[in-house]
């Protein structure tokens, strides 16, 4: 469970996140939507303790991220899949991450298989395509078998087979009772993946609803999204 309450973040004078309050519940996929610069990534960074909020707070399982014991065993995050040092091999990247949280190195082989990198474990990450880096990032997020997953644009760079694979994987993870917050710009994909939606624009909460409530019968998610986001434009 992720709880965000009154969360606000100003960069200099500009508010990036403005008094955001929402809860991400377990057992379903929550889509995190909003136009560029709406504050999605900043919100995720605040939840993960990478930036400090100007006001308000974000908690994971009732605790602020900094106070979690062995955080990777509770929260898995994929922010920017390209933010890896290219000189390391895929398995070495997962190895230091596992070691940092006292996770068994035995998990690495199986995870690389799961994300479709079974043959690429010995290869250096610098030579990976964006899609391969996304798969590696997902393996890193799943390393500690966490209850909570935060994924920022995880399907960027994936091929059609990869997108379908990611969708099925997220659905099975949610069915196991995990809490999943996933951001995306691809409305058609979100329409078939998410159970619940949180929509933000200019740092503010625009909608927090079941996808079946958010999208009227006959309209597409894209139509409703444009409508909602258009209203908050200056």
């Amino acid at each position, binding site marked *: 469970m992720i709880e965000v309450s009154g969360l606000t*973040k100003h960069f200099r004078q500009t508010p990036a996140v403005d008094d955001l309050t929402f809860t991400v519940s377990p057992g379903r996929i929550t889509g995190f939507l909003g136009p560029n610069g709406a504050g999605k990534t900043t919100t995720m960074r605040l939840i993960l303790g990478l930036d*400090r909020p100007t006001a308000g707070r974000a908690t994971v399982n009732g605790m602020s991220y900094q106070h979690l014991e062995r955080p*990777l065993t509770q929260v898995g995050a994929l922010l920017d899949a*390209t933010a890896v*040092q290219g000189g390391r091999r895929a398995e070495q990247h997962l190895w*230091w991450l596992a*070691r*940092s949280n*006292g996770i068994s190195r035995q998990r690495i082989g199986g995870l690389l298989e799961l994300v479709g990198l079974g043959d690429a474990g010995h290869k250096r990450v610098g030579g990976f395509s964006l899609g391969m880096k996304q798969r590696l990032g997902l393996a890193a997020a799943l390393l500690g078998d966490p209850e909570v997953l935060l994924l920022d644009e995880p399907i960027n760079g994936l091929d059609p087979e990869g997108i379908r694979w990611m969708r099925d994987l997220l659905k099975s993870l949610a069915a196991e009772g995990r809490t999943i917050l996933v951001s995306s710009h691809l409305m058609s994909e979100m329409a078939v993946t998410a159970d619940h939606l949180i929509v933000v624009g200019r740092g503010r909460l625009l909608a927090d609803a079941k996808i079946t409530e958010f999208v009227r019968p006959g309209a597409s998610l894209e139509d409703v999204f444009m409508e909602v986001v258009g209203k908050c434009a200056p």
Partner: protein
Amino acid sequence: MCAVNTIAAEWIKLRTLRSTWWALGIGVLLSLALTMLGATTVISRWDPGRTPDQAAMGIIVAVYVGVILGQLPFGMLGTMTISGEYASGMIDTTLVAMPSRGRVLVAKAAVLGGAATAASLLIAIPGYLFGRLVAAEFHPSLLPAEVWKVIGGGTLMIAATTLLGLALGAILRNGAVATAALVAIVLLLPFVANMLPWGEEVNSFLPTWPALQLIEQLPDIMPTWAAFTVLAGWAVVPLLIAVIVQRLLASRGGAD
């Protein structure tokens, strides 16, 4: 328990990058070559009346001149260890896995300090054995009491430069800028200070003169304990500043 995990993870990170082995390899091989060359030249000029203790001291001094030469590659390894994470953005992954910035920096310092000390021994031990071989006719004693000042000073200098590199990388977050600052502090400032009227006072507080005084390459301008204190300060204080700066930047959040 947690600190052990952090140190172990940073150790894996350090040794799984090829640049680590390049920096250490270049530092060790270049220094060792110069040590052997220097020792041969110096020892060939010794007057025949040298006592076994003086001969041993002479060998150690020659060896630690070589060790000190290895400091720049090691210092650059220190800057790369953190600036490489800022450049690639992997620092975020590091902080998600290990949320305490201070603990990460201290763990990096521990593994870097260990690696630099081990590398300095890879220069010193073969260099020492080589020196004994060249100076065999003087029957050098094993390790007389006064050589420990040289060994201690040289080792502390290597560790201090490496950790200073790490601290500068953590504060400046840019490998090129941090390396330039490192070269300025270790090489340029002592040289410039030497030309100033109060250069000796300034140099007492920079890392290079105390180190070279301890390894008998420059005349004494301060007591031995003061030289050790200044060097130890350069190993510790910049890192403390880096921890504080990172805290401040994290609370403002604008710098990332």
